[in-house]
Structure formats: C-alpha cells, structure tokens
C-alpha cells in the first residue's frame, strides 16, 4: 500500500510542471466543490423533507378539523330526541317487535325523522331509534320504517355506546341494505339516550351517514395525485378512503399525531402524517411517496450537479490554460539552457514581466553574457602570456653583446689570419642584425636575398662546399616588397631536408618570376623528397592548422600562415615533391612595389 503510494508520489514528482499544476488544481477544485455540493444537497433534502412533513401534518390537521366540525354537527343531531318528549316516550315504551304503531306515533316519529333528514345534511342515509324495552323505529335508505328490529346485545357499537356515558360513538363504515335490495355504504354515529330522572339507559339513536360527504372533505385537501388519504378507526380498520382505488398502508393502529416514514424499500417509501380526532377517535392518515415529495429536490440536485459540472469543466479548462501559460517561459528557458549547454552562448531570453520568471530570465541573460565575456578574457590572457614569454626570450639575448662578441671573434681571426672564421663571424653578425633588429613590416626582395646569401655563405663553410646555391632572379623583381624573413626559412628547410639527409648533390636553386601582379619565388632542391603520405599530411596541416608554429615549428607552415594572414587566402605556399627527386616549394605573393606600399 505504502509502496504503491510512494510509487504514485514518485510518478507525480516526475510529471511535467504544467501537469502537476493541473493535477493539483483539479484536486483543489473537484474535492471541495463536490463535497460542498453533496453537503448542500443533503442538508437541503433534509430540511425539505422536514418542512414537507410538517406541512403535510398541518394540512392533515386542517382536514381533521373540518371533519371534526362536521362530526360535531352530527353529534348535535343525535341529541334531538331529548327535545321530543313523544320520541323519548316511544323509546322507553315496552313493546313487542313488529307491534303496530298508532297513527299519532307514526306521525310524531315521521316528523322527528324528517326533522333530522331535513335539518341534517343531504348525506344522512338512515335514522334508527332503539329502546331498551323493545321499541324500534328504523329508517333505511329507500325504505319505509321498520319496527321489527331488536337490539343485538352482542353488537360492538352497542357495547361501545354503553361504555361512553352518553358520549356518542362512531361506527366504522358498514353496509346497509334497503328493502328493494340495494346496499349502501354508511358510517354511523350512535348515542346512548338516558332518563334524567332515573339515570337509566332508555335506548339508543343511530344515524347512518353517507361516507361521500366525509370523502369530499378529504378530497378538498389540496394534495398531489399520489397522496393517499384515508381515515382508520382505533383498530386500524379503514373507515373512509379518499379514493377507493387508493391502497391502504399497513401501519397498524395509530393514535395521537405525528409524521413517520413507512417501512419498505426505498422505492415505496412513504412519508406518513396522521392525526387522531378526539371526537371520533378515528385517525386521519395521509401518505405521500417520498419519491414524489423529492421530485422538486431532484430538480435542485440536477441543477446543482449541472452547475458543478460546468464550473468544474470551466475551472479545469482555465487551470489547464493557466498551467501551460505559467510554465511556458520556464520551458523556453530550459530550451535555451540546453543550447547554452551545447556551447551556443549567443542566446537571449525575452523578459516581459518582473515576476520570478522574469527575474530568472534576466539572471539567465546576465549569466550567458558573463559567460561569453569570461571566455574572451581567458583568450586574451593566454595571448598576453605568450607575448610575455617571447619578450622574455628576446631580452635574454642581448644583440649588442652578440655583435660585440662576433666582432671580437672576427678581429682575433684576422690576427690569426683565419679567413674562414672572419667570413663566418661577419656573416653571422649580419644575419643576426637582420633577423633581430629588423622591425620593418616590409623589406625588398633584394634585402631578403642578401640575407639568404649571408646565411648560405655560413652554411657553405659548415658543409665545406658540398652544396651549390644558385640564384636566378629577374632585375625587376628585386625591388618588390615582401614580408621579412620569408625566404630564408624555406632555404633552410631545403638544406635540412635536401642535404642533411645525405642524399643528393646538394643543389639548391632559387628562382623568381613576375607574372602580372603575382610574384612567384621557387626554391628547389634535389634531396630525398617526401613520400606521398608525408606530402598529403603536410598539405593538410597547411590547409587547416591555425597555429602559428611552436618550437617544433615547421618553417614552411610558419611562412605559409604568415603569408595567408598578411595577404589573404589567395596567396601562400604550394609544395610539390616526389620521393628521391627533391622538393619544390613555390611561394606566391602579390607584386607590391615600394611606392604602392607607402
């Protein structure tokens, strides 16, 4: 588990910065919003259910009150016998069942019943009078009066009526049949009638009522189509239903008032309100499917969900855009950094803002510019160091000391009459003077050749006339300007390569030719020459190497670079050679006359 978590954290850490931002944003938006939505809806639903429940109870109380008012009217009707003396007399009289009534009795009973029928409401279906001593007068719907009824001692209603001390008792809906065979649903109110003088029970009055009137009262309540409403008696038996098609809930006997949820699965769950009437003892019950009640809250829930979805969608879209926008300069910076890594220092990060990224960009720019500056400084320092080295070397050899020494050697040789030493030391002195003190940029070819001849006379003495130097230079070329000390190294190279290796006759031939504006100086020897590979390597080095020749400096290379640097890539040295057939070095220079140089 922890491993998995660690893995996830690592995976997250390796994500792109923009993705990280998006993930975090999503989490920050989604979790609180969803939690808020769920909490809001839950509390809303709770509050709504509570309100609906209490509203339902209020409505039901009103309905119950209306019914009670109606029942009170009926209750008062059952008191009418007390105000008719002849009726009380009839009830208390002793009679056989079916005993005929006298005309007066018929009249008074009929008047009494009519008064109830007419004073009461249209919904009175029947009126019955029962005496304890056998009198009975029963009027059922669509029938004439009947006097043959006997009190059924086992009837429930009778037991109830007897135990209520003159209070009326309400009898659940039951069926009565008219003489013509039609049956009617009625509920009844019964009251015990007693004598004030003796305190004894004289009889009972029962009034049958069409439940339609009470049903109308139930139907008056403004309810939804799914609402079930009915009245049940104390035993939980249905008395009157609002609509016979409606189902009856299995709630058992309820009393008092309140709101409860019917048991059952979620689909059929009902919110039940009930109120028990103190007058009838019946309980009015109303039940609404919770689903029906929550229909409105479903709309709210859907709206919340929709709004949340839209908000989340918007937020995520915005956060994606923002995340990419914020990390855009960082990604750019990282790209530039990679370029710098590859050595490209001429990069610049455009700074638009003064925030951290802007400052970072600015620092980056500073860093890159510092870096390139440092590189240049390093380079310059290197050059200066070299210059210093050279200067030091030069200063170590005092030319005047050398000249004076050479002059002394020459004088000593003259005294000793050694001509060769005199010649050598004089020539060496001249050579040194030319190479060390010549600070001019340009010299004439004549000067250069004089210098070469001086060098050669020394070499001739060294090699004891074993070599032959010939010069073939046209007169007009002698006045042309050349860079100092470019011819002697080539001749020196020819001696080193041509004669030192001991092969060849030691012939070195220098020739010059002026063709148009180009002066060509050619130095040939008949020495050992170069193999093809060596030649290629030499040419390669001349082509590409930029070093100005070190101590191991190849004279040719050095001269070539100097010419290229001085005159451009069009000029320089070219080398031709064959093994054992000598080396031929051709030098091309622009024909520069003295006046032009000035």
């Amino acid at each position, binding site marked *: 588990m922890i491993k998995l978590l660690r893995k996830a954290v690592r995976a997250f850490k390796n994500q792109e910065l923009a993705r990280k931002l998006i993930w975090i944003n999503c989490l920050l938006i989604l979790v609180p919003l969803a939690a808020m939505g769920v909490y809001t809806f839950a509390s809303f639903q709770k509050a709504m259910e509570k309100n609906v429940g209490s509203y339902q109870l209020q409505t039901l109380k009103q309905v119950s009150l209306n019914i009670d008012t109606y029942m009170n009217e009926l209750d008062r009707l059952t008191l009418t016998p007390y105000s008719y003396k002849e009726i009380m007399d009839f009830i208390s009289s002793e009679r056989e069942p079916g005993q*005929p009534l006298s*005309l007066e009795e018929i009249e008074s009973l009929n008047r009494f019943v009519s008064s109830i029928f007419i004073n009461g409401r249209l919904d009175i279906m029947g009126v019955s009078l029962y005496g304890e001593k056998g009198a009975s007068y029963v009027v059922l719907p*669509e029938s*004439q009066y009947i006097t043959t009824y006997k009190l059924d001692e086992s009837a429930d209603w009778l037991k109830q009526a007897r135990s209520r001390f003159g209070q009326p008792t309400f009898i659940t809906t039951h069926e009565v049949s008219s003489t*013509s065979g039609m049956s009617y649903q009625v509920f009844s109110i019964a009251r015990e009638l007693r004598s004030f003088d003796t305190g004894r029970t004289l009889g009972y009055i029962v009034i049958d009522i069409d439940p339609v009137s009470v049903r109308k009262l139930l139907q008056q309540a403004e309810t939804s189509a799914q609402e079930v409403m009915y009245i049940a008696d104390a035993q939980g038996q249905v008395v009157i239903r609002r609509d016979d098609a409606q189902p009856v809930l299995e709630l058992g006997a309820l009393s008092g008032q309140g709101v409860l949820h019917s048991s059952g699965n979620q689909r059929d769950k009902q919110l039940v309100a009930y109120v028990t009437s103190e007058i009838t003892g019946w309980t009015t019950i109303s039940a609404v499917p919770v689903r029906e009640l929550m229909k409105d809250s479903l709309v709210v829930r*859907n709206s919340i969900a929709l709004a949340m979805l839209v908000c989340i969608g*918007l937020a995520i*879209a*915005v956060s994606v855009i923002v995340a990419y926008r914020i990390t855009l300069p960082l990604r750019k910076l990282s790209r530039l950094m990679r370029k710098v890594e590859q050595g490209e220092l001429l990069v610049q990060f455009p700074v638009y803002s003064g925030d951290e990224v802007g400052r970072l960009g600015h620092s980056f720019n500073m860093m890159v510019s510092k870096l390139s500056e440092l590189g240049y400084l390093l380079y310059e320092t290197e050059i200066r160091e070299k210059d210093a080295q050279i200067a030091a070397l030069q200063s170590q050899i005092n030319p005047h000391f050398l000249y004076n020494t050479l002059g002394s050697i020459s004088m000593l040789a003259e005294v000793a009459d050694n001509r060769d030493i005199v010649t050598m030391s004089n020539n060496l002195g001249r050579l040194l003077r030319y190479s060390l003190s010549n600070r001019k940029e340009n010299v004439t070819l004549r000067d250069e050749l004089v210098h070469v001849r001086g060098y050669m006379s020394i070499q001739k003495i060294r090699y004891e006339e074993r070599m032959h130097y010939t010069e073939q230079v046209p007169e007009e070329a002698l006045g042309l300007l050349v860079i100092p000390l470019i011819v002697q190294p080539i001749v020196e190279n020819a001696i080193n390569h041509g004669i030192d290796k001991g092969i060849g006759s030691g012939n070195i031939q220098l020739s010059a030719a002026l063709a148009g504006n180009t002066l060509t100086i050619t130095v040939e020897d008949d020495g050992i020459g170069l193999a093809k590979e060596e030649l290629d390597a030499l040419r390669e080095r001349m082509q590409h190497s930029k070093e100005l020749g070190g101590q191991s400096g190849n004279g040719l290379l050095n001269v070539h670079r100097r010419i290229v640097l001085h005159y451009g890539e069009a000029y320089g040295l070219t080398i031709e050679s064959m093994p054992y057939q000598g080396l031929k070095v051709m030098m091309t220079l622009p024909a520069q006359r003295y006046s032009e140089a000035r």
Partner: protein
Amino acid sequence: MARDMVRRWIVAAVAALLLSAALTGCTKANEEQPEPEPRKEVVRLDYWTPFSGGDNQFMTEMVERFNKEQSEIVVVQTNSRLDDYYTRLRTAILSGNAPDIAIIHTTSMPQFVQNGYIEDVTAAAEQVGLDLSQLNSNIRESTEYNGQSYAVPLDTHALVMYYNKKHLRQAGVLDEATGKPLIEPGEQGFRQFLEQIRQAIPADVAPMAMPSTRIDSVWLWWSLYNQLEGGGIFYNEQGQAAFNNPQALRALAFIDELYKDGLIGANINDSFKLFYDGKAAVLFLGMWGTGAFEKSPELELGVITVPVLYDRPAQWGDSHSLAIPKKHNMTDEKRRAAMLFSKWMVEHGELWAQAGHVPSMTKVVESEAFNRLEYRNDYAAAADYVVYWPRHPKQWSMIEILIAEFERMIYDKQTPEEALRHAQLKVDAALEE
C-alpha cells in the same frame, strides 16, 4: 504576441460555450416541469332525485352509464326519500343552494313554475338538439305552461295492480292461459275476488297490501273516483274544492270497506316489502315497482292496469321530469350539460323502462327493446288513461291534506264522509291562504 491573441480568443470562446451549455441546461430543467394541461374543465352536475320505490337502482345505473359514456360531464346523484324531497328542494331553491338538475313530478310542477323557480328549457333543449315533439304528446303537454316547456318529461308512471300468481292460483282466480286474474265486474266482483284469495291463502298473507299511512290510498281513490261517471272533479269552476261529492264518497267508502273488512292487511307499513316478500296477493302501486319485483325470488309476478270497477278506465298517474332549478350561479355551460344529460336520459328510455316506467319518447316505446320487456306491454296503454292531478300551484299541499284525512279514516278515527268533508274544508282554507 499573435499567438497569445489567438489563445486568448480560444479561452473566451470555450468559456462562452460552457456558459451557454450551462444556461441551456438550466432552461431545459425548467421545461421538464409538468405544465398544466389545457384540458377542458369537466362540468359537474348536482342531480337530485326522490326515488324510494325500487327504481333508484335503475336511475343510479343510468347515471353511472352516462358518466362512463362521455367525459365532459359528471353527474352526481343525490337521492332523498320522497317524504322529505320537496321540502328539501324548496328550501334549497329559496336558499340558493339548488341542484343543477332535479326530478320534479308533474303534480308538483305548478308550484315550481310559479315565480320562476325552474327554468324554461324550450330554447336550451333546441340548442342541444333535443326535439321535444318526439315525446308522447300527453306526457309532454303536462310539462308545458303557456306553450313553453319547463322540464323534460322522462316517463309516465301510473297506478297498476300487481299480483302474486302463486296466491291467485291457489284461490282459483287466475286465468292460467293469459296469466291474468279472473275478476268479476264492479265493486262486488273485486271484493269477491279478494275474498276468494283470503280464504285460500295462509293467514299471514294479506289478500291486498296497501299501507295504512301515506299516499297509496289517495292514489287508489283518485283512480276509482275518475272511473265514475261525473267523477274526477277536484276544484269547481270558481277554483274551490269540489271533491266532497257522491262519486268521491262512493270510491272512498269502497276503499274504507276493504280496510275495515280486513281485505287490506291491517297496520301495513311497507306494502312494497310485504308484496316483495310474497306476503301479499295483490298490491296497488306505481309502475316503478316492476323492475324490483321481477327480481324477487318469492314472487310469481303479474301486472295489469287498475281494474275498471265503474264506468270507464282511469288510473292515477304522474310523470317524472327533469327540470333546471333557477339559481344565480347557473352557467350556460351547466345548462347545456343539464340538457345533454336530459337528452341522453329520454333517448335511453328503455333503460328507465326496466324500472317499470313507460318512457316518454314515442320512438322508445315503439322500439323492440322496450317491447321485449315483460309486463310493460301489459300496461303501456295505461298512459292513455292516466289521470293527472289538476294543475294547481298548491296541489301537493292539497294531497297532503287528503293523506292526513284518509289516514285518520283508515285508523278508524272518522268515517269516509267526515274525511271528505274535513279534507274539503281544509283544502278551501289552504286555498284562502
């Protein structure tokens, strides 16, 4: 920079799109609310009836069928016992709580036509295509005042003689071939007929059933009185009571004797139930009992018109008609609905005929459906010999006076002569009021 602009546009577009999606979502949610359908309002008609003789079940069936056959009108029937019906209806009209449509007996119509308590329905009937001329003219005219119809007559019902063939057969007074009773002519013949029955049947069976109280004896008296030459006068030309005469006395005395001789059972309250249960051989009652009696297992039913004991056939009759009580909140819609209901009722007279009445519409009486019904044929012709009570606004009160006086006679508190004399005095007194 240009790229930035583009991005900004995209962001704005996406935001707008999401917002509009949210808004349309909201409106859609609103549309889901169930809108109240523009359904046509059902017209509810309160319909009061005074049926208490077994015919109510047929009326209830018809109302139910009417309600089922169409969906624009709902008729809600309230039935009261006849004893209280007119008191209630009068009170309701005076207190402005009248029903939308009510049954009114032709006898009682004058008191409702006076002062305009019920509406003239001539025009309304025409509007719904109810042609009143298709009704039996005798019946129709009973609802016409000054050439205007004040109600749609539903039927005629007359007094008929029911008999239990079982008892008659026992007494040998049944013509087995025709199923008709064998009655010798005249008062004596009828008395002989009952005597023969009394001797043949058990003691707990009444030869003839007629209640000791209420209107039944008055109906029989009016029928017999009208059978006599020169009988049938209630008011004279001066508008005073004129029924205290020899013919009236003869008819009443004959009835009184039947009671006194015990040919009519003593202290009968519910003659209908008595006959229904097979405890009576002969019963004089309106035609409305037929439908109920047919269903009785105790009864081998026979029906004839009131026998002619005197000079000519005549029997009391009345008719039920559908009237619209006047009230201030009556709407044209309800009026139209009431007439549509009336039209349906008379056109479906064969259903009403099952209760026993003779339908008002000629077409229905001639129809096969009606003629297939047993017994009705036997007394259908009676419609022609029906004697209505005279048209008088206070007629019903006068009849109540007769009832009270006859009851006293039946309970042996006065002679027939006294009964007629007292009744005439009281009627005259009532006329003076």
